[in-house]
């Protein structure tokens, strides 16, 4: 028996077949059985239970709506995090008199996407001695806790994942789960810095939950509901119906406590880089770290959204919108399929041609023909998008509400970013002292005053 034959015989038959396949064949081998079996099972299930499923869904149409909402929210979080990360990179850079990211994409705007890919490409390992199960689950728990709170936030009239009648309670219950994830990460990493960070986060978030929750009780009393949609509706009307004018102290307490809940400067003790390296995330790398990172920025968005919802009128406009136009012409099906096709073709081609001529007239012969047409097309697309957006803004409540909501939310995101660029970090005893000695009594006082006022006005 030669050596060659020995090696051949040592390799098993499946391995031999596998090594002779091309990459495309291998992929086919992996995915084809899944597709076949999945298709078969679907067909059989539809044949057997199809009418029943359709009947069930048509009766309970909340269920597909719920799944669609959850999927949309899940899809929304990562781009949101990208935008906030980019904002943070760029805004802090400008505040530091730096340029900030300026290489990838226009003004460096794709930088955070690249960060995301980098995180995906990094090696993902657990340190020796770590409790691998808990270590792996911790980022998932943190991320899940963050995005589950998004379910009850009303983005616009009718645009809410699930309008729970205990929405606020659900929000705080889910938000409180974040600390479990951080504690798991800190404990399982087998690192003292992680442990300190995890314990700090537990102490900090549990302490700040109390003023955070107490400060909105005044709002609940005034709005007479715990549904976030109801709270926003209670603030409709003029600018001075917003709860920030009725509950200014509560708004302040809520903002401070929300900063601590989102682990943002000056309360970012859990990941204080100059003290405990990276806190609970010290031993994390790759996408596990990415989940923590995304969760942090999603948290910033959520806290800003909650502040905007609870105290700043949510999707209500700051003033009464003068044009309550309903554009019948804009109704999707009023022109029929042929009409819409004609409109789209006309706008696309005629607009592009016209603008290309304009570009040619303005730019002269500096650009060649292709560039002129591309430029005309780009300007056309921008114009159409702008026009559609404006029409949507004045015609649809949803677009208008979403615009105001996002403006307010990103305003608060910018405030968080601004604070990060400006403020040093507080010490852990100062942090706890502030929560228990100042915020908690202030929140109780606010609650007491609000409740008294409500009782007095109602009895009169």
């Amino acid at each position, binding site marked *: 028996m030669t050596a060659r034959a020995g090696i051949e015989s040592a390799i098993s038959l499946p391995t031999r077949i596998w090594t002779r396949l091309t990459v495309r064949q291998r992929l086919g081998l992996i995915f084809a059985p899944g597709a076949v079996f999945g298709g078969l099972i679907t067909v059989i299930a539809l044949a057997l239970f199809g009418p029943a499923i359709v009947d069930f869904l048509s009766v309970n149409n909340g269920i597909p709506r719920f799944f669609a909402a959850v999927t949309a929210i899940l899809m929304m979080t990562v781009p949101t995090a990208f935008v906030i990360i980019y904002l943070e990179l760029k805004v*802090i850079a400008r505040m530091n008199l730096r340029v900030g990211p300026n290489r990838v994409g226009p003004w460096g705007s794709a930088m955070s996407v690249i960060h995301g890919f980098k995180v995906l490409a990094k090696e993902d390992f657990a340190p020796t001695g770590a409790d691998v199960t808990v270590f792996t689950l911790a980022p998932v728990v943190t991320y899940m806790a963050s995005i589950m709170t998004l379910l009850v936030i009303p983005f616009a009239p009718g645009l809410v994942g699930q309008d729970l009648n205990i929405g606020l309670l659900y929000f705080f219950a889910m938000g409180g789960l974040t600390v479990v994830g951080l504690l798991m990460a800190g404990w399982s990493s087998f690192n003292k810095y992680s442990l300190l960070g995890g314990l700090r986060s537990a102490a900090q978030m549990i302490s700040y939950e109390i003023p955070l929750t107490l400060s909105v009780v005044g709002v609940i009393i005034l709005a007479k509901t715990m549904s976030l949609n109801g709270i926003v509706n209670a603030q409709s009307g003029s600018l001075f119906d917003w709860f920030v004018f009725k509950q200014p102290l509560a708004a302040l307490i809520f903002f401070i406590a929300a900063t601590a809940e989102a682990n943002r*400067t000056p309360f970012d003790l859990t990941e204080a880089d100059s*003290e405990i390296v990276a806190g609970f995330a010290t031993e994390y790398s790759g996408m596990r770290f990415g989940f923590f990172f995304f969760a942090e920025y999603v948290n910033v968005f959520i806290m800003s959204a909650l502040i905007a919802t609870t105290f700043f009128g949510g999707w209500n406009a700051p003033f009464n919108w003068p044009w309550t136009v309903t554009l019948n012409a804009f109704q999707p099906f009023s022109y029929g399929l042929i009409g819409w096709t004609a409109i789209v073709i006309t706008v696309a081609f005629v607009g592009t041609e016209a603008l290309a001529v304009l570009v040619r007239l303005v730019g002269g012969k500096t650009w060649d023909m292709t560039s002129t047409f591309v430029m005309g097309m780009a300007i056309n697309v921008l114009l159409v998008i702008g026009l559609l957006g404006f029409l949507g803004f004045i015609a649809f409540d949803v677009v208008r509400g979403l615009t105001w909501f996002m403006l307010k939310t990103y305003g608060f995101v910018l405030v968080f970013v601004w604070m990060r660029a400006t403020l040093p970090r507080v*010490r852990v005893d100062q942090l706890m002292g502030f929560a228990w000695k100042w915020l908690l009594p202030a929140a109780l006082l606010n609650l007491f005053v609000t409740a008294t006022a409500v009782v007095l006005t109602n009895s009169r």
Partner: protein
Amino acid sequence: MPPRQPAPSTSKPRASAKADATTPAKAPTKAALARAAKASAAAAAHAAADVAAREYTSGDDPRITLERQIGHLYEPIPPYPMRTERESEFYTLGDGEMFLNVGPHHPATHGVLRLVLKLSGEQVVDVDPVLGYLHRGVEKICENSDYYHVIDQVDPLEYISSLFQEWSAVLSFEKLLDVQVPRRAEYIRVLSAELLRIASHTLYMGFLALDLGGLTPILYGFIERDEIVEMLAALTGARMLFNYYRIGGVNGDLNHEFMSRLGDWMTRAAKQTDANIGLLNENEIFVRRTRGVGVMSREMALRYGVTGGDLRAAGVPFDVRRAHPYSVYPELDFNVPTRDEGDALARYLIRVDEIRESIKIIDQCLHNMPDGPIMARVPRLIRPRPGRAWGAVEGPRGLMGVYAISDGSDQPFRFRIHDPSFVNLQTLQAMLPGNLLADTMAIVASLDPVMGGVDK
């Protein structure tokens, strides 16, 4: 195919490991122990832990076994016999205490300072600073290079403010040689050194804020420092390691680019400094993080031999420029600011005041700058008469001294460098216990150590 060998019995390696572990303990003499320590201490520690792990395997929770196996890798306990009583006392844990190894790779230890902290919760119980990660043996190198080469050997020690280290070296050599430095050269030295002092202090403020979690001041500090080092680059040809002072003078005269940059900067220096300082002075969180933290009393500061701003913050008006004047400082009008609190905030505010005083000095230098040569007549090959000289200058961090002994040859027989950060760092042992972990970074940053100088 040959049959596979039977699995080795577990008793064999255990026995050999035990033998390894016990061998150095039986060694008779101290000398033999010291030699054996190098070779086998680490191996013995691993082997012992290995044995312990295997013995506990049966019936125990596997996770506990794992901690036993690798736990010694995570404790900063040294793997050699304790050398002093203090060391063995430190590396013995009390109830509820743990070690935390801060550095040498840590975001807030200013280079490669390593602090082994003994923590109870977040409270520091004791600290053992470990130095030497940046030791290059500069003193030995200087003793083996001639007098001119010493100047560029000492440059990278205090890399933030290298002119002062050069100055102390050339001062001691000039004393050995009895050279009278021309007045214009002295004024240029004062001018450039005070500029660098401002750069160093501006950076200090930024790093202090950075260690407290403030991102922005460090970048403002670097902008200020960059203007100054660009200016000095026009004067000396280098941004950081200047190699500018010479025995008996300086390397080059003032030039147009330097003067125009300096004039440009001086018109707004005071205003810009106030603006930068306002970032921190008016910040409530910064003030609360530093006030009453790391208090160094007057007696303690003197007992520890602390110098520089750290000593003046404790109320001792000791500034070498006034206490033991050198160069043309007696002719210049400036104050030595002192404070009584001795805490981190006072150390910070002293630096702020010193920036203002330095701007005053630069202004006077520009007004009083005499004409004349910039170098004394010094021989090409320097062979001072046998003797000893001690040259000390006031650096940004305190007294920077050089003790040079000449034996009549062209190389210093002994070249001793005294670095202020080295002495100031010792106070950590007295200041840290009782403070929180977060204050550790504030205190270290407020002492302003430069590890290049500390480790020599």
